[in-house]
């Protein structure tokens, strides 16, 4: 209990002091998370929408269970896979992305992508199947039908964004393996928490944890406001 209280105090203090090392960690956390999220959304929303709309794609009976599995991928396994991909002998070794933020973004994109695809697909499938028919009857092209249906499923798609964001900002296994938790280079909030806990700096670790939760909360608060606005007209 005392540790908790101290952790909270320390967190406030750290924040108020604008400790440069801390700001750097927070900045990198946000940078890696948001870029990975953006890539996952740009790729995942169209794929998810296509899967949700076209119910008769060949290979669907294998593809969909694969995506569902992907939604629960153990981050450590993704980290290992990305590590091998980016290591010197790996197929993407020439990029020299191992132990860099770019490598971490690759790993987190792999974690977020199936979530975005799977949840977008579910959201689109939840739209009344007669709606695309009505749009077609109004003279819509396939592209217009897809866009209208996607917009109609916007509340569910926002949930996909929230789930993907939450899973990668709080993820530690993959960024630890691929990033290496190098101070000033690849240290993010989660890996810093692991390190400080190991060193016995519980108060500092807790402070970092509180900051992480606050970041998640603030972002989700914004998402929720967006969702509320979409529920109306």
């Amino acid at each position, binding site marked *: 209990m005392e540790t908790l209280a101290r952790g909270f105090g320390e967190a406030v203090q750290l924040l108020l002091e604008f400790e440069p090392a801390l700001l750097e960690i927070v900045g990198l956390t946000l940078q890696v998370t948001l870029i990975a999220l953006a890539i996952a959304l740009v790729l995942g929303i169209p794929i998810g929408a296509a899967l949700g709309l076209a119910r008769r794609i060949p290979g669907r009976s294998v593809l969909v269970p694969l995506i569902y599995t992907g939604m629960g991928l153990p981050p450590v396994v993704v980290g290992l896979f990305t590590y091998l991909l980016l290591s010197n002998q790996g197929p993407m070794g020439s990029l020299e992305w191992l132990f860099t933020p770019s490598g971490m973004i690759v790993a987190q994109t792999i974690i977020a992508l199936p979530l975005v695809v799977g949840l977008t697909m579910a959201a689109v499938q939840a739209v009344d199947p007669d*709606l695309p*028919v*009505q749009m077609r*009857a*109004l*003279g819509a092209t396939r592209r217009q039908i897809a866009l209208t249906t996607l*917009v109609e499923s916007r509340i569910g798609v926002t949930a996909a964004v929230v789930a993907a964001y939450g899973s990668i900002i709080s993820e530690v296994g993959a960024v630890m393996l691929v990033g290496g938790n190098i101070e000033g280079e690849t240290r993010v909030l989660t890996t810093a928490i692991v390190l400080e806990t190991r060193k016995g700096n519980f108060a500092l670790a807790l402070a970092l944890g509180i900051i992480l939760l606050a970041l998640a909360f603030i972002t989700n608060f914004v998402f929720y406001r967006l969702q509320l606005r979409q529920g109306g*007209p």
Partner: protein
Amino acid sequence: MTTTYRLSGVQHVYGERCVVDIAHLSILEGEILGIVGPSGAGKSTLLRLLNFLETPTIGHIEYRGSAYDGDVPLSVRREVTTVFQRPMLLRRSVSANIRIAQRIRGGASGDALIDQWLDRLGLADLTDAPIRTLSAGEAQRVALARALVVEPSVLLLDEPTGNLDPYNVGLIEHMVRSDTDRRGMTTVVVTHDPFQAKRLADRTALMISGRVVEIGETEQFFTDPKQPETRAFLRGDLVY
């Protein structure tokens, strides 16, 4: 008189069941054709075929002189629209729902036109109302406004007044009639209410089990039906 649709040997099958089975049917340019018939007769399915939403399993539908197998050009598709039995509206405002029909067809978003239609259908106060707050009859009128705003040359109506009070039924029938006459639109109206066909349609057809049992001038259809099924249907007997 030119024909808008000419159906020959059209059969539409779901699974094992032949739901529409029409040897010959012509729908004439500029007419209002009423279609009555018991539930499950295939009326809605026929409208889906006429709107090119499905392709008949067997047979041809000739539309304005051309038969299309599968791919119907966009410009042709956009001449036709349907107001479905269940109004399918987007979870947005009333005006946004009507605007989308114009947007889809690349038409200029004419807010004045939208207001004009909402006003005509007694929905002027609901312009900004969210769809989920509408009553069933209001939703039905929004769906109708959305179809009429794009000025289709063929309008297919599936039970357009099922949820409406007599005043609004009259209003909508008047509107369909005046647009049909003003623009030479061709209209097919499926209705459960024989009296609606009697008031509105130039010709009326009776569908039973996928077949057109009788079709004729509305006047004659009601006063002097040729088929025993028609007489039974108009009496209110169960026909199938």
